[in-house]
């Protein structure tokens, strides 16, 4: 199953980055390939020794966005959040905003639960990817596709 395929960093580097990632990282709920740019960003965040798997992370966002100015997102990661086993960071990337970086969160065992919500801007329909990094260095991701309906003609 594509969603659980582990990819060694080396393999990814060897292949033409885009194509390899497109094949390996498939959004769980959709029959679409992960955008190459998201794959590149994810690997850059994961670091040289990391593996990256599509599991354990849930990026929750409405698939149909009425207004791109303020879109609620919740990212949750399956982790006990103990001193021995916890999420250290969550990165959120956008495929088609003017800037791909959306936010980078730092979590600690004091967080207790690996769940973060915020509100973001979306310039257009695109894919979004959340990557969670664990204290053991492993990285997990979730990619979703959102459709942004165009802004109104009623404005100043």
């Amino acid at each position, binding site marked *: 199953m594509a969603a659980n395929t582990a990819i060694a960093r080396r393999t990814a580097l060897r292949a033409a980055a885009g194509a390899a990632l497109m094949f390996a990282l498939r959004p769980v709920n959709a029959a679409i390939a992960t955008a190459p740019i998201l794959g590149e960003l994810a690997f850059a965040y994961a670091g040289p020794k990391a593996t990256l798997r599509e599991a354990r992370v849930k990026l929750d966002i*409405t698939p149909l966005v*009425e*207004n791109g*100015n*303020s*879109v*609620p997102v919740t990212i949750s990661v399956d982790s006990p959040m103990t001193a021995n086993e916890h999420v250290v960071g969550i990165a959120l990337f956008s495929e088609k905003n003017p800037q791909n970086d959306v936010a980078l969160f730092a979590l600690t065992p004091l967080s207790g639960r690996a769940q973060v919500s915020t509100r973001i801007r979306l310039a257009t329909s695109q894919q979004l990817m959340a990557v969670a990094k664990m204290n053991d260095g492993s990285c997990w991701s979730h990619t979703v596709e959102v459709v942004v*309906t*165009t*802004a*109104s*003609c*009623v*404005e*100043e």
Partner: protein
Amino acid sequence: MLLLLASGSMYAQNSPEMRRSGITYTSPGTQALQADDSQNPGMLWVRDGAQRWTIPSGDARKSCADCHGAIATMRGVAARYPAASPSSGSAASAAGRVITLSQQINRCRVEQQRAPAWPPEHADLLALESAIAFESRGLPMAPPAQPALSAAQTRGEALYRQRIGQVDLSCHDCHDRLAGKKLGGNTIPQGHVTGYPIYRLEWQAVGSLQRRMRGCMTAVRAEPYAWNAPELVDLEAWLAKRAAGMRIESPGVRP
């Protein structure tokens, strides 16, 4: 636009039972944002206004609270505006004229605090108006029975039904006949003024009812009336009457 007009004419004018707040036309995400005070950005303006309420200002070195007491004494006030201005106060010339809540705040600012009036959409003015409106949340809109106000409502209704702009549509065409239809990415609401001042996602900030109405005028390529022009005050008076009895939900959130 033309297609939309052709298909919309079958819609009758809203009867009172069919009146719906603009929030009911928005996405679940926008509704959740308005409903949750810990997330509704309008609450930042409310909190800001409640603090400004207690800060002395102007040559009189008086805060709003010095004369009015706690902000809670403003409960019910926003539900009554626009209204004929009270006859007390130093500028007798203003007495009896219909004014908006924001004009009344500025009146106290100038006549009571002896400070320069805030320009339209000034952050402090919007904050105070938000805090005062918040005190009336849950109360029904209740325009008072005043002859001057009734005249303003009549003039406002006429303006509301007058076709304007290159698009040649009236407020009534859109907000009564076409309410519920899509226009661009938006659903046309019935245009009820229960949430003002509103946090508008498009503005990414809180703004006044006049800003909202001027936006509609620009959208139909009409020249918007100047801020606080008698026409805008009359329109506000009519919209308040049109929404009479509906519950205040300030700070409203709209797309």
